[in-house]
Protein backbone atom coordinates (compact mmCIF):
# COMPACT_ATOMS: atom_id res chain seq x y z
CA UNK A 1 0.00 0.00 0.00
CA UNK A 2 2.74 2.43 0.93
CA UNK A 3 4.69 1.87 -2.24
CA UNK A 4 6.04 5.31 -3.05
CA UNK A 5 8.06 4.32 -6.06
CA UNK A 6 6.25 5.85 -9.02
CA UNK A 7 6.97 2.90 -11.29
CA UNK A 8 5.61 0.30 -8.96
CA UNK A 9 2.54 2.18 -7.92
CA UNK A 10 0.17 1.04 -10.68
CA UNK A 11 1.43 -2.51 -10.39
CA UNK A 12 0.92 -2.49 -6.65
CA UNK A 13 -2.55 -1.03 -7.11
CA UNK A 14 -3.51 -3.75 -9.58
CA UNK A 15 -2.22 -6.36 -7.16
CA UNK A 16 -4.34 -4.89 -4.37
CA UNK A 17 -7.41 -4.94 -6.61
CA UNK A 18 -6.79 -8.56 -7.55
CA UNK A 19 -6.25 -9.54 -3.94
CA UNK A 20 -9.45 -7.82 -2.85
CA UNK A 21 -11.43 -9.53 -5.62
CA UNK A 22 -10.05 -12.93 -4.66
CA UNK A 23 -10.53 -12.47 -0.95
CA UNK A 24 -14.10 -11.33 -1.37
CA UNK A 25 -15.27 -14.01 -3.78
CA UNK A 26 -13.47 -17.18 -2.71
CA UNK A 27 -12.53 -18.73 0.58
CA UNK A 28 -8.79 -19.09 0.20
CA UNK A 29 -7.91 -20.33 3.67
CA UNK A 30 -8.82 -23.94 2.96
CA UNK A 31 -5.61 -25.82 3.70
CA UNK A 32 -4.28 -28.79 1.78
CA UNK A 33 -3.22 -30.28 5.11
CA UNK A 34 -6.93 -30.41 6.03
CA UNK A 35 -7.48 -32.72 3.08
CA UNK A 36 -4.58 -34.93 4.12
CA UNK A 37 -5.83 -35.08 7.71
CA UNK A 38 -9.35 -35.99 6.58
CA UNK A 39 -7.92 -38.66 4.28
CA UNK A 40 -5.86 -40.27 7.03
CA UNK A 41 -8.92 -40.35 9.29
CA UNK A 42 -10.89 -41.89 6.43
CA UNK A 43 -8.32 -44.63 5.88
CA UNK A 44 -8.01 -45.36 9.60
CA UNK A 45 -11.80 -45.52 9.84
CA UNK A 46 -12.00 -47.93 6.91
CA UNK A 47 -9.33 -50.16 8.48
CA UNK A 48 -11.20 -50.30 11.81
CA UNK A 49 -14.46 -51.01 9.97
CA UNK A 50 -12.81 -53.88 8.11
CA UNK A 51 -11.63 -55.26 11.46
CA UNK A 52 -15.15 -55.00 12.93
CA UNK A 53 -16.62 -56.74 9.89
CA UNK A 54 -14.01 -59.50 10.06
CA UNK A 55 -14.92 -60.03 13.67
CA UNK A 56 -18.60 -60.23 12.82
CA UNK A 57 -18.10 -62.77 10.06
CA UNK A 58 -15.81 -64.74 12.36
CA UNK A 59 -18.66 -65.04 14.85
CA UNK A 60 -21.09 -65.76 12.05
CA UNK A 61 -19.09 -68.79 10.99
CA UNK A 62 -18.47 -69.93 14.56
CA UNK A 63 -22.17 -69.92 15.33
CA UNK A 64 -22.96 -71.26 11.89
CA UNK A 65 -25.67 -68.74 11.21
CA UNK A 66 -27.25 -65.37 11.61
CA UNK A 67 -27.54 -63.91 15.10
CA UNK A 68 -29.78 -60.86 15.44
CA UNK A 69 -27.91 -59.67 18.56
CA UNK A 70 -24.57 -59.82 16.72
CA UNK A 71 -26.07 -58.02 13.76
CA UNK A 72 -27.49 -55.17 15.80
CA UNK A 73 -24.13 -54.88 17.63
CA UNK A 74 -22.43 -54.64 14.26
CA UNK A 75 -24.78 -51.92 13.11
CA UNK A 76 -24.25 -49.91 16.30
CA UNK A 77 -20.49 -50.29 16.17
CA UNK A 78 -20.30 -49.18 12.56
CA UNK A 79 -22.57 -46.22 13.22
CA UNK A 80 -20.51 -45.18 16.24
CA UNK A 81 -17.33 -45.54 14.20
CA UNK A 82 -18.78 -43.43 11.39
CA UNK A 83 -19.70 -40.64 13.82
CA UNK A 84 -16.27 -40.78 15.50
CA UNK A 85 -14.38 -40.74 12.21
CA UNK A 86 -16.46 -37.83 10.99
CA UNK A 87 -15.82 -35.86 14.18
CA UNK A 88 -12.06 -36.49 14.25
CA UNK A 89 -11.76 -35.76 10.52
CA UNK A 90 -13.78 -32.58 10.82
CA UNK A 91 -11.86 -31.31 13.86
CA UNK A 92 -8.43 -32.00 12.40
CA UNK A 93 -9.30 -30.43 9.02
CA UNK A 94 -10.80 -27.48 10.82
CA UNK A 95 -7.59 -26.94 12.80
CA UNK A 96 -5.36 -26.75 9.73
CA UNK A 97 -7.72 -24.37 7.93
CA UNK A 98 -8.06 -22.24 11.07
CA UNK A 99 -4.28 -22.06 11.28
CA UNK A 100 -3.99 -21.00 7.64
CA UNK A 101 -6.68 -18.33 8.04
CA UNK A 102 -4.86 -16.94 11.06
CA UNK A 103 -1.60 -16.81 9.10
CA UNK A 104 -3.34 -15.00 6.24
CA UNK A 105 -5.01 -12.71 8.74
CA UNK A 106 -8.45 -13.50 7.31
CA UNK A 107 -11.40 -14.10 9.63
CA UNK A 108 -12.52 -17.73 9.46
CA UNK A 109 -16.20 -16.86 9.40
CA UNK A 110 -16.62 -14.26 6.70
CA UNK A 111 -18.70 -13.70 3.60
CA UNK A 112 -16.84 -16.30 1.55
CA UNK A 113 -16.72 -19.06 4.16
CA UNK A 114 -20.43 -18.49 4.78
CA UNK A 115 -21.19 -18.98 1.09
CA UNK A 116 -18.93 -22.02 0.98
CA UNK A 117 -20.65 -23.50 4.01
CA UNK A 118 -24.19 -23.08 2.68
CA UNK A 119 -23.35 -24.34 -0.78
CA UNK A 120 -21.75 -27.41 0.73
CA UNK A 121 -24.56 -27.95 3.21
CA UNK A 122 -27.43 -28.05 0.70
CA UNK A 123 -26.38 -31.15 -1.30
CA UNK A 124 -25.07 -32.78 1.89
CA UNK A 125 -28.37 -32.38 3.76
CA UNK A 126 -30.29 -33.68 0.77
CA UNK A 127 -27.95 -36.69 0.80
CA UNK A 128 -28.38 -37.21 4.54
CA UNK A 129 -32.19 -37.30 4.25
CA UNK A 130 -31.95 -39.57 1.21
CA UNK A 131 -29.69 -42.06 3.01
CA UNK A 132 -31.75 -41.93 6.18
CA UNK A 133 -34.87 -42.75 4.15
CA UNK A 134 -33.12 -45.73 2.54
CA UNK A 135 -31.94 -47.03 5.90
CA UNK A 136 -35.47 -46.77 7.26
CA UNK A 137 -36.48 -49.31 4.63
CA UNK A 138 -33.48 -51.47 5.57
CA UNK A 139 -32.17 -50.73 2.13
CA UNK A 140 -28.49 -50.43 2.95
CA UNK A 141 -26.82 -51.53 -0.28
CA UNK A 142 -26.72 -48.06 -1.82
CA UNK A 143 -25.61 -46.26 1.33
CA UNK A 144 -21.88 -46.20 0.53
CA UNK A 145 -22.28 -45.08 -3.10
CA UNK A 146 -24.85 -42.45 -2.09
CA UNK A 147 -22.44 -40.96 0.47
CA UNK A 148 -19.76 -40.63 -2.19
CA UNK A 149 -22.11 -39.20 -4.83
CA UNK A 150 -23.74 -36.59 -2.60
CA UNK A 151 -20.39 -35.60 -1.11
CA UNK A 152 -19.00 -35.22 -4.63
CA UNK A 153 -21.96 -33.07 -5.70
CA UNK A 154 -21.47 -30.88 -2.62
CA UNK A 155 -17.80 -30.40 -3.51
CA UNK A 156 -18.55 -29.50 -7.12
CA UNK A 157 -21.12 -26.99 -5.92
CA UNK A 158 -18.84 -25.53 -3.26
CA UNK A 159 -15.88 -25.19 -5.64
CA UNK A 160 -17.37 -21.93 -6.91
CA UNK A 161 -16.59 -20.38 -3.54
CA UNK A 162 -13.09 -21.71 -2.90
CA UNK A 163 -10.17 -23.07 -4.93
CA UNK A 164 -11.44 -24.42 -8.26
CA UNK A 165 -9.31 -27.54 -7.68
CA UNK A 166 -11.99 -28.74 -5.26
CA UNK A 167 -14.16 -29.41 -8.31
CA UNK A 168 -11.84 -32.23 -9.39
CA UNK A 169 -12.01 -33.85 -5.98
CA UNK A 170 -15.79 -33.68 -6.42
CA UNK A 171 -15.68 -35.30 -9.85
CA UNK A 172 -13.54 -38.09 -8.40
CA UNK A 173 -15.98 -38.77 -5.57
CA UNK A 174 -19.00 -38.79 -7.91
CA UNK A 175 -17.26 -41.16 -10.30
CA UNK A 176 -16.25 -43.55 -7.49
CA UNK A 177 -19.82 -43.48 -6.14
CA UNK A 178 -21.32 -44.27 -9.53
CA UNK A 179 -18.91 -47.15 -10.17
CA UNK A 180 -19.64 -48.43 -6.66
CA UNK A 181 -23.35 -48.72 -7.61
CA UNK A 182 -22.33 -51.64 -9.83
CA UNK A 183 -20.10 -53.28 -7.24
CA UNK A 184 -22.46 -53.67 -4.33
CA UNK A 185 -20.82 -55.10 -1.22
CA UNK A 186 -17.48 -53.46 -1.98
CA UNK A 187 -18.58 -50.19 -0.40
CA UNK A 188 -15.81 -50.14 2.15
CA UNK A 189 -13.12 -50.23 -0.54
CA UNK A 190 -14.79 -47.41 -2.42
CA UNK A 191 -15.13 -45.42 0.79
CA UNK A 192 -11.44 -45.91 1.56
CA UNK A 193 -10.58 -44.85 -2.00
CA UNK A 194 -12.85 -41.79 -1.96
CA UNK A 195 -12.74 -40.47 1.58
CA UNK A 196 -9.23 -41.71 2.26
CA UNK A 197 -7.03 -41.93 -0.80
CA UNK A 198 -8.59 -39.11 -2.90
CA UNK A 199 -8.51 -36.71 0.05
CA UNK A 200 -4.83 -37.39 0.65
CA UNK A 201 -3.92 -36.98 -3.03
CA UNK A 202 -6.00 -33.81 -3.31
CA UNK A 203 -4.61 -32.37 -0.06
CA UNK A 204 -1.07 -33.12 -1.14
CA UNK A 205 -1.57 -31.38 -4.49
CA UNK A 206 -3.19 -28.36 -2.84
CA UNK A 207 -0.41 -28.07 -0.31
CA UNK A 208 2.22 -28.38 -3.03
CA UNK A 209 0.49 -25.78 -5.20
CA UNK A 210 -0.44 -23.11 -2.69
CA UNK A 211 1.25 -23.61 0.67
CA UNK A 212 4.68 -25.10 0.07
CA UNK A 213 6.19 -21.61 -0.11
CA UNK A 214 5.21 -20.49 3.39
Amino acid at each position, binding site marked *: *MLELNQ*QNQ*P*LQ*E*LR*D*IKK*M*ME*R*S*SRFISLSGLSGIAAGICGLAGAAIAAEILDNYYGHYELKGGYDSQDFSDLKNRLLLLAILVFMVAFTSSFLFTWRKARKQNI*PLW*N*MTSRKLFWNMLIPLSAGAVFIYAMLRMDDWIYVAPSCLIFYGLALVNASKYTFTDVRFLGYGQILLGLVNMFFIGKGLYFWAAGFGFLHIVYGGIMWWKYERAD
Partner: protein
Amino acid sequence: MDFCILFMGALCGGNMKGLTKLIQVKFLILKNPITGLNKVFESRIRLGVMSILMVNEEVNFNDLKQMLEVTDGNLATHLVNLEENGFIKIHKGFVGKKTNTTYTITKTGEKAFTDHITALESMIKGVK
Protein backbone atom coordinates in the same frame (compact mmCIF):
# COMPACT_ATOMS: atom_id res chain seq x y z
CA MET B 1 -6.83 16.54 -33.69
CA ASP B 2 -3.99 17.60 -35.98
CA PHE B 3 -6.41 19.82 -37.77
CA CYS B 4 -7.42 21.29 -34.46
CA ILE B 5 -3.82 22.04 -33.56
CA LEU B 6 -3.20 23.70 -36.92
CA PHE B 7 -6.33 25.72 -36.43
CA MET B 8 -5.26 26.74 -32.94
CA GLY B 9 -1.79 27.49 -34.32
CA ALA B 10 -3.33 29.77 -36.89
CA LEU B 11 -5.24 31.44 -34.12
CA CYS B 12 -2.03 31.96 -32.23
CA GLY B 13 -0.97 33.98 -35.23
CA GLY B 14 1.99 31.82 -36.11
CA ASN B 15 3.34 32.05 -32.61
CA MET B 16 5.62 29.04 -32.64
CA LYS B 17 5.93 28.87 -28.89
CA GLY B 18 2.21 28.46 -28.49
CA LEU B 19 2.14 25.82 -31.19
CA THR B 20 4.84 23.68 -29.61
CA LYS B 21 2.99 23.86 -26.35
CA LEU B 22 -0.17 22.64 -28.03
CA ILE B 23 1.67 19.75 -29.62
CA GLN B 24 3.09 18.86 -26.23
CA VAL B 25 -0.40 18.86 -24.78
CA LYS B 26 -1.58 16.57 -27.55
CA PHE B 27 1.35 14.27 -26.92
CA LEU B 28 0.49 14.15 -23.25
CA ILE B 29 -3.15 13.30 -23.93
CA LEU B 30 -2.18 10.41 -26.18
CA LYS B 31 0.78 9.06 -24.30
CA ASN B 32 -0.11 9.66 -20.73
CA PRO B 33 -2.59 7.13 -19.47
CA ILE B 34 -2.90 9.04 -16.21
CA THR B 35 -5.79 10.80 -17.89
CA GLY B 36 -7.72 7.53 -17.67
CA LEU B 37 -7.13 7.21 -13.97
CA ASN B 38 -10.11 8.07 -11.88
CA LYS B 39 -9.69 10.50 -9.02
CA VAL B 40 -12.47 8.81 -7.10
CA PHE B 41 -10.37 5.63 -6.87
CA GLU B 42 -7.39 7.36 -5.33
CA SER B 43 -8.72 6.30 -1.95
CA ARG B 44 -7.75 2.77 -0.98
CA ILE B 45 -11.14 2.20 0.61
CA ARG B 46 -13.17 3.36 -2.36
CA LEU B 47 -11.01 1.23 -4.64
CA GLY B 48 -11.53 -1.73 -2.31
CA VAL B 49 -15.31 -1.30 -2.26
CA MET B 50 -15.37 -1.21 -6.06
CA SER B 51 -13.13 -4.29 -6.36
CA ILE B 52 -15.41 -6.24 -4.04
CA LEU B 53 -18.60 -5.13 -5.78
CA MET B 54 -17.16 -6.03 -9.18
CA VAL B 55 -17.03 -9.72 -8.28
CA ASN B 56 -19.96 -9.95 -5.85
CA GLU B 57 -23.52 -9.27 -6.86
CA GLU B 58 -24.61 -7.74 -3.59
CA VAL B 59 -22.63 -7.08 -0.40
CA ASN B 60 -23.84 -5.73 2.91
CA PHE B 61 -22.27 -3.08 5.09
CA ASN B 62 -20.80 -5.42 7.70
CA ASP B 63 -19.12 -7.67 5.16
CA LEU B 64 -17.55 -4.66 3.46
CA LYS B 65 -16.39 -3.38 6.83
CA GLN B 66 -14.86 -6.73 7.75
CA MET B 67 -13.06 -7.17 4.45
CA LEU B 68 -11.69 -3.65 4.24
CA GLU B 69 -10.86 -3.41 7.95
CA VAL B 70 -12.27 0.08 8.41
CA THR B 71 -14.47 1.83 10.96
CA ASP B 72 -18.19 2.37 10.43
CA GLY B 73 -17.94 6.12 9.96
CA ASN B 74 -15.03 5.94 7.59
CA LEU B 75 -16.69 3.35 5.37
CA ALA B 76 -20.01 5.19 5.38
CA THR B 77 -18.38 8.41 4.13
CA HIS B 78 -16.71 6.61 1.25
CA LEU B 79 -19.90 4.77 0.34
CA VAL B 80 -21.83 8.03 0.18
CA ASN B 81 -19.12 9.45 -2.05
CA LEU B 82 -19.33 6.47 -4.41
CA GLU B 83 -23.11 6.73 -4.50
CA GLU B 84 -22.97 10.46 -5.28
CA ASN B 85 -20.72 9.62 -8.22
CA GLY B 86 -23.33 7.15 -9.40
CA PHE B 87 -20.92 4.21 -9.08
CA ILE B 88 -22.87 2.19 -6.57
CA LYS B 89 -26.47 1.73 -5.54
CA ILE B 90 -27.65 1.46 -1.95
CA HIS B 91 -30.50 -0.89 -1.06
CA LYS B 92 -32.04 -0.56 2.36
CA GLY B 93 -33.66 -3.71 3.63
CA PHE B 94 -34.46 -5.59 6.80
CA VAL B 95 -33.42 -8.90 8.29
CA GLY B 96 -36.01 -9.39 10.99
CA LYS B 97 -36.04 -6.09 12.81
CA LYS B 98 -32.43 -5.19 12.04
CA THR B 99 -31.65 -2.97 9.10
CA ASN B 100 -29.61 -4.63 6.41
CA THR B 101 -28.14 -2.22 3.90
CA THR B 102 -26.64 -3.78 0.81
CA TYR B 103 -24.67 -2.31 -2.04
CA THR B 104 -24.47 -3.12 -5.74
CA ILE B 105 -22.33 -1.70 -8.51
CA THR B 106 -23.96 0.36 -11.29
CA LYS B 107 -23.21 0.27 -15.01
CA THR B 108 -21.45 3.63 -14.68
CA GLY B 109 -19.40 2.26 -11.81
CA GLU B 110 -18.38 -0.82 -13.77
CA LYS B 111 -17.32 1.33 -16.71
CA ALA B 112 -15.32 3.73 -14.53
CA PHE B 113 -13.62 0.85 -12.76
CA THR B 114 -12.62 -1.03 -15.92
CA ASP B 115 -11.35 2.22 -17.45
CA HIS B 116 -9.28 2.76 -14.33
CA ILE B 117 -7.79 -0.73 -14.61
CA THR B 118 -7.05 -0.26 -18.30
CA ALA B 119 -5.25 2.98 -17.45
CA LEU B 120 -3.19 1.24 -14.77
CA GLU B 121 -2.29 -1.54 -17.18
CA SER B 122 -1.18 0.84 -19.90
CA MET B 123 0.93 2.71 -17.36
CA ILE B 124 2.79 -0.51 -16.59
CA LYS B 125 3.24 -1.25 -20.28
CA GLY B 126 4.42 2.34 -20.81
CA VAL B 127 7.12 1.93 -18.16
CA LYS B 128 8.45 -1.26 -19.72
